[in-house]
């Protein structure tokens, strides 16, 4: 009997295609990643079926977190708009007699997120950005006699008059209704009736009215 010799196979495989694919995926993720700007407070937004994308325009963003603390940020894309931010804080300074110094107002322009009542604003603006996190207690909105957000919105609308300014509301899932109502009230006092709620996208439930409408539009479009 002649013995059958089994050829010893090499365990070495060509990894080149594998590496190619890996780096392709890597390149994709590098391109697609957009780093989240660091946020002082964590907010989980509710889901909605709305398909409108968030536009990056000049906007006044009002956030409220799960404890009902309200924060206000001015989102302006261009550096020229720093003048407008300066006007805003000057408006606030004179209307509320805060006695802010030039340096404090400049501190506001460089970081417009505010989350304290007016009587603590001076001290808040003296803090460095990373220290501000500990003193955030929110802009008071729930007391209808002293809705300070209304003053802020009025000052912002005044400073940005003649420019398109959007109003965005970003609220946490677990925030209670009164803080949402306080925000709406602040807008209503300034005759602002149109705003946008920032939400997470969600699929439209199949078979619902909106689903049928979307289908109809798709057919008409194609």
């Amino acid at each position: 009997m002649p013995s059958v010799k089994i050829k010893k196979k090499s365990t070495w495989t060509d990894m080149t295609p594998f590496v190619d694919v890996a780096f392709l995926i890597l390149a994709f993720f590098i391109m697609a990643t957009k780093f989240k700007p660091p946020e002082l407070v964590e907010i989980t937004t509710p889901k909605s079926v709305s398909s409108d994308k968030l536009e990056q325009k000049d906007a006044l963003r009002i956030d409220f977190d799960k404890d009902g603390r309200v924060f206000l940020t001015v989102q302006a894309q261009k550096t020229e708009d720093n003048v407008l931010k300066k006007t805003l804080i000057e408006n606030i300074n004179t209307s509320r007699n805060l006695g802010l110094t030039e340096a404090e107002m400049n501190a506001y322009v460089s970081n417009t997120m505010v989350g304290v009542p007016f009587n603590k604003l001076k001290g808040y603006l003296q803090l460095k950005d990373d220290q501000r996190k500990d003193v955030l207690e929110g802009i008071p909105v729930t007391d209808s006699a002293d809705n300070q957000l209304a003053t802020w919105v009025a000052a912002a609308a005044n400073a940005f008059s003649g420019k398109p300014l959007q109003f965005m509301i970003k609220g946490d899932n677990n925030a209670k209704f009164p803080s949402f109502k306080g925000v709406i009230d602040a807008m209503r006092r300034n005759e602002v009736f149109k705003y946008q709620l920032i939400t997470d996208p969600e699929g439209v439930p199949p078979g619902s009215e909106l689903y049928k409408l979307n289908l109809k539009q798709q057919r008409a479009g194609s």
Partner: protein
Amino acid sequence: MASIDSDSESSHKKGPGVKKAKKLSTNVDMTPMVDLGFLLITFFIFTATMSTPSTMRLTMPKDDKKPEDLTEVKESGALTIMAGRDDRLFYYEGQLAADGANFQSTTYKEVRDVILNKKKQVIAAHQHDAGCEKIWARNGGDRNSCRDKDFVVVIKPNENATYKNSVDLLDEMAINDVQRFALIDITPQENQFVQASDQ
């Protein structure tokens, strides 16, 4: 020195003392590179924020104090939905009876049927309205929009309802194609009923 005397003939041509350059393998060990590649992939997968947030347009009514400016709502076409604590939901049709006879409870899953039933009911009761259809025809809209013109949903979250509840209900308006709805403060009487059922 096995490499030198492996091929004696070729080395002979170049003469003695000339060393033939060793042919280096082009095969590079790629394992570390692959390791690094996958490490970066995992890093970027975890940090990637794929879905850009969407926005929901909300238009609130003007706060009119003058009674003649207020929008009149037909009682037969009104549906009031109230949100309470722990995702509880209540509703009534038309006007709330003093004893709360028409005050009913529902859930976020079932509220869609409640809205759709009411809508169907309003459309069925609709009488031909030439004036409304004329307005719609002039604006280039669908004349069928007049059929549910009396249908109004009023959303009233109480102080224990969350922001999510409000957004879910507003979303429900979009899902069910409700044209007329309003977000209004709850009245003390309604809140009493809601809190009584909360226990």
